[in-house]
């Protein structure tokens, strides 16, 4: 469980990134943190694994104050996949990249071998095992970074902008993968701008604006509230946009998925026929 209580954070250059954030994320939750560039999303999640420590207020991970433990200790429990994979990758081959953390955590070679194969398979990277991460495309490097974190099986998974550079099919795989991890009891926290992706997952959504949380709730409620959405500099999912434009005809704007939309529209059009 992650508990954040009245946290303030200011960067050395004076930028106040967090201005009194409080939240609780229970074990096994799936949360999407969204909002404007510079709203403090990445700053907030960097508090979850101790990379940043609050200037004021407290962050506890499973009851442990993050100020009292090292990032290395927290890392075993909280896996963090960065926004830009180039900030994370450094090894000569994809295989070594994944092995690195496993070795540091003291896993035995046969376990390491098994974990590498498992992670490569899961993310469709098997053919790149011996390739340099730097020879891969942006989207592929992103998956290598994810594989290297998943391999040590952290209990809490933080993904900063996981869909960037991913095509539609990979996003669909990522979605199923996240849902699968979540079903297995992992806490998954994503920071994302990808409204369509979130609409398809329907997680708990927290919207941030100017260092504060301005909305917190089910995706289909939060993302279809035009006022809140504009405040957080996002746009509603396209299906909901259609329904918002037709709201004078009595359509429910809280429709974010295409199949619900189909049902509603078929009924409406049939109703008119009879």
């Amino acid at each position, binding site marked *: 469980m992650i508990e954040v209580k009245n946290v303030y954070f200011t960067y050395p250059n004076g930028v106040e990134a967090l201005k009194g954030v409080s939240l609780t994320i229970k074990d096994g939750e799936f949360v999407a943190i969204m909002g404007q*560039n510079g709203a403090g999303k990445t700053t907030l999640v960097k508090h979850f694994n101790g990379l940043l420590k609050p200037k004021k207020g407290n962050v506890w991970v499973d009851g442990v104050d993050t100020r009292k433990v090292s990032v290395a200790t927290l890392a075993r429990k909280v896996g963090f996949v960065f926004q830009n994979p180039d900030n994370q990758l450094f090894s000569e081959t994809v295989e070594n990249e994944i092995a690195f953390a496993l070795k540091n955590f003291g896993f035995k070679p046969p376990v390491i071998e098994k974990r590498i194969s498992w992670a490569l398979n899961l993310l469709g990277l098997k053919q790149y095992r011996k390739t340099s991460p730097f020879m891969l495309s942006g989207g*592929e490097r992103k998956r290598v970074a994810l594989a290297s974190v998943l391999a040590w099986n952290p209990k809490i998974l933080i993904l900063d902008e996981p869909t960037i550079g991913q*095509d539609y099919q990979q996003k669909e795989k990522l979605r199923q993968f996240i849902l699968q991890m979540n079903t297995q009891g992992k806490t998954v926290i994503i920071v994302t701008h990808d409204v*369509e992706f979130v609409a398809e997952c329907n997680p708990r959504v927290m919207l941030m604006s100017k260092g504060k949380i301005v909305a917190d709730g089910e995706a289909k409620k939060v993302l279809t509230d035009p006022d809140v959405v504009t405040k957080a500099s996002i746009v509603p999912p396209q299906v909901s946009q259609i329904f918002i434009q*037709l709201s004078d005809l009595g359509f429910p704007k809280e429709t974010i998925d295409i199949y619900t939309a189909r049902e509603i*529209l*078929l009924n409406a059009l049939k109703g008119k026929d009879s």
Partner: protein
Amino acid sequence: MAVIETKKLTYTYPGGTKPSIRDVSIKIEKGEFVLITGPSGCGKTTLCRCFNGLIPHFYQGELKGEVFVTGLKVAEHPIYELAKHVGLVFQNPENQLFALSVEKDVAFGLENLGMAREEIRKRVDWAMKLTGIYELRERAPNELSGGQQQRVAIASVLAMQPEVIVLDEPTSFLDPLGAKKIFEVIYELNRKLGITVVLVEHRLDLTARYADHIIIMDNGKVVLEGKPREILSSEEARLIGVGIPKATRLYQILRKDGVKLGGTVPLCSEEMAAMLREALKLND
């Protein structure tokens, strides 16, 4: 006249075991807004690197076939000469920014063209205002967020006002409203100044509406090409796994259910909403 033309273009990176793009023959007309999409690793970025000479001059490797950009054969002209005609916004802004302040980064290309100081000032301010970074002009690019860096990278290319702008997922770090505004700016420059735009994107929900021409790549090849409304409503595009805009998808599904909707395929929520309103009225 085609502003970009490739003829049977095949390219293999140094040390690569197979070509990253194969037999690509495309024509992009002057003033077009072209969208290039396709699964990750399909060769989109590689193709863009051929448009400003990074391939073959910087990356080397093996290039077969020909690329002409604004009438220049790319293999025979150095990058700095091509840069006068084609501006490229990279996927990762960190690969592009290096100056100590935002405005110096934006001015760099213009200074290299030997432009008069006054004109540089004017262009730099114009580009920074268009992209919403004027307030950041004295900040160091490496201290900015990913989204802000992307704005700087776009501004530095817009400032050059090249004949062709190539953008490789230029707004991936930007929030959706910010991205929408940037696409509107790019679209306006395309319509008003006639700048040819080549945009690489996965997020067609945001961008399909602006395109005159769409190119879908898969596995190094161009597999579908044509008008967005036709291509994006085709079964092939869906099977390749392109992210069809939800409005287009909903239209397709309803048509399959036998619902009568207008003749033009919608590419955005406004078009779909208008079409549904019409259909509901007719049924009254």
